[in-house]
């Protein structure tokens, strides 16, 4: 998986958006539309990633985000404070609020990178995980 430690740069380049589904309590930080052919992979405790056929990460999603992830990572409550309801159960962080959460998202990207490193040190074979 290419440049796991550069997820934040990938997110900026590919204009990822933060979306939240309150019915599912799932948080997405991803391309607005994940590519057909991208595969979801979960090798970290809190995060699932969408990885396309070129090994590029297209997004991260967190299940039970508000009522579990945030309870263990309270700094991310601020992310939820920036969400705006756009219809039904869907919330987004609008472009004009994006700067307010940039540090938090950088922190999330670092968390993913560090947990990935931990997973590799524990023996997870990322090559298999990515190519499967």
């Amino acid at each position, binding site marked *: 998986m290419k440049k796991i430690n550069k997820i934040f740069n990938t997110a900026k380049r590919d204009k990822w958006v933060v979306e939240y589904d309150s019915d599912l309590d799932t948080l997405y930080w991803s391309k*607005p539309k994940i590519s057909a052919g991208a*595969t*979801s992979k979960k090798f970290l405790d809190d995060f699932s990633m969408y990885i396309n056929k070129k090994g590029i990460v297209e997004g991260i*999603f967190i299940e*039970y985000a508000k009522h579990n992830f945030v309870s263990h990572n309270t700094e991310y409550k601020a992310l939820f404070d920036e969400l705006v309801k756009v219809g*039904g159960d869907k919330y987004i962080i609008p472009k004009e609020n994006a700067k307010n959460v940039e540090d938090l998202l950088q922190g999330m990207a670092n968390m993913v990178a560090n947990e990935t490193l931990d997973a590799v040190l524990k023996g997870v074979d990322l090559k298999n*995980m990515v190519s499967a």
Partner: protein
Amino acid sequence: MPNYRNSFEDYSGTTIVVDWADELWTNHINKHPEIRDYAFASRLIAEALLHPSLVVSGEKPGDKENIVCYYKQNKRYENEIHYTKVVVGCNSKPFYVKTVFQRWALFDIAVQEKKYDFKEVYRDQKTYL
């Protein structure tokens, strides 16, 4: 596009429906492209409900909604498993599909609900989940 609507029966004979407006379908397909289209999504849901590998039930953290999660093991590679997950809401009848997606995961972290004291209500003894 017409709503995504269908009705299924799970392994215990319980009727479960899906009734998603176009916007809700679009939200799902944008984040879970593997569900492809209405017909394929229905195949995934039907298979997971009728022939699950693992079923867990409990209260969703936060709003305490009663949910049942059906996991269907599709394939395995060493300590990784590919599965379909269908989340069903049970606060009204008929029960209703809240989401469906597919994923690869390491065995020991595949079932997120293990962290929240969900009860195991069915297990195929051959599953690695």
